């Protein structure tokens, strides 16, 4: 697969469009010695160093370049999660769709399994065959049966490990704010690790409600090994059930929390009587 990707990248970098313009570069991963890091390949580069592993949030690289260089046209070698990240970023003006070509490839079945990925392939699939979706995260799968006390106990031992490195935020392709609510002393008390009420993680979970595209970069980068994606998977599930929104699925779909009930209605309960809006099941 990697050979095929290298070949296609080389072709794309040399292609000209109707106006005779070429891509200014292809965002992908490059191997230098034992290390692999994001890179922008240009025409003529040695593409034998192009890699697809490990996963980096390449759309963040695209976004940074798009913002700083307003005329640049890029390609990107993307996985399904990268493409979903692109959808939510482009929707929020962090990437200019007119200046990006997505060259998608499918993840392997093993990767899908590791990531609990429901859609381990991009819509712009150029290389590879779509693998079957990975299984649900086992914690998420049994969550409905957990009592409040069990959940509390579970998260308490997770959140207490948090060293507030902000790595989950920093690596997240959907966290592109200039100023972060998790650094606002009004919401997160400075100087305390693992505050009694875990506002830090809950604020992030709320902010992820219409954004988290389940790339799981946050969990991979967490030095405390907190299973953050359990929190976000549950949020994604509630979001889909209540508002029918699947982040990353559709560039044209409006972020439901920002628009009216006429634009995206509640799918459960009656907005006129919020008491009728059902909660997700809780174990007893």
């Amino acid at each position, binding site marked *: 697969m990697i050979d095929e990707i290298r070949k296609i990248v080389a072709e794309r970098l040399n292609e000209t469009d109707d106006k005779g313009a070429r891509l200014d570069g292809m965002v992908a991963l490059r191997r230098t010695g034992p290390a692999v890091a994001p890179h922008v390949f240009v025409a003529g580069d040695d593409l034998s160093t192009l890699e697809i592993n490990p996963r980096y949030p390449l759309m963040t690289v695209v976004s940074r370049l798009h913002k700083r260089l307003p005329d640049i046209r890029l390609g990107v070698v993307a996985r399904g999660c990268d493409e979903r990240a692109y959808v939510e970023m482009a929707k929020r003006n962090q990437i200019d769709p007119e200046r990006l070509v997505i060259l998608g490839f499918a993840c392997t079945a093993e990767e899908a399994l590791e990531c609990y990925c429901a859609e381990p392939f991009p819509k712009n699939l150029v290389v590879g065959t779509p693998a079957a979706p990975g299984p649900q995260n086992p914690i998420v799968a049994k969550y409905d049966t957990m009592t409040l006390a069990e959940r509390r106990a579970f998260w308490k031992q997770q959140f207490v490990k948090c060293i507030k490195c902000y790595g989950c935020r920093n690596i997240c392709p959907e966290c592109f704010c200039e100023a972060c609510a998790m650094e606002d002393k009004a919401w997160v008390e400075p100087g305390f690790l693992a505050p009694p009420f875990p506002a830090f993680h*809950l604020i992030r979970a709320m902010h992820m409600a219409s954004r988290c595209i389940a790339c799981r970069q946050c969990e991979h980068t967490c030095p405390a090994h907190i299973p953050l994606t359990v*929190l976000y998977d549950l949020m994604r599930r509630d979001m889909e059930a209540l508002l029918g929104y699947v982040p990353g699925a559709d560039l044209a779909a409006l972020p439901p929390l920002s628009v009216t*009930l006429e634009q995206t209605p509640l799918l459960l309960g009656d907005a006129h009587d919020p008491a009728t809006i059902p*909660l997700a099941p809780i174990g007893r």
Partner: protein
Amino acid sequence: MGVEFEPKIVAFMCNWCTYAGADNAGVARMESPSNVLPIRVMCSGRISPEMVMRAFRAGADGVLVMGCHIGDCHYSTGNHRSVKRMPLLRNLLATVGVNPERLELTWVSAAEAPRFVQVTHSFTDKIRSLGPLSQEVAE
């Protein structure tokens, strides 16, 4: 038995409906529980999840979010956002083990002084029966 637990309840109220309804309840000399600590905002749409979490962190045992009925919003659709946000936040609280009943969203219009009194009473009773949040979180 010691002194019965009296919950602290932060009630976010929109300026145009619920706050006016609460005001009318007072003018009409209806009694609402002193546990309810009102905070006025211009619209229920102004109430961010962060504010609710901050109230819990600062010692509230329950949080009431109140605004105009759907269709009656002074700003026409501010409350549409509350009715989407708050149920998600309730689920999130449940996810981390906080009883979601401690957060309630409800609509009270300026004309519904009796409803304001009823809602605040029943919510206070509910939180009283749930006990203090600190105890729940500390256990």
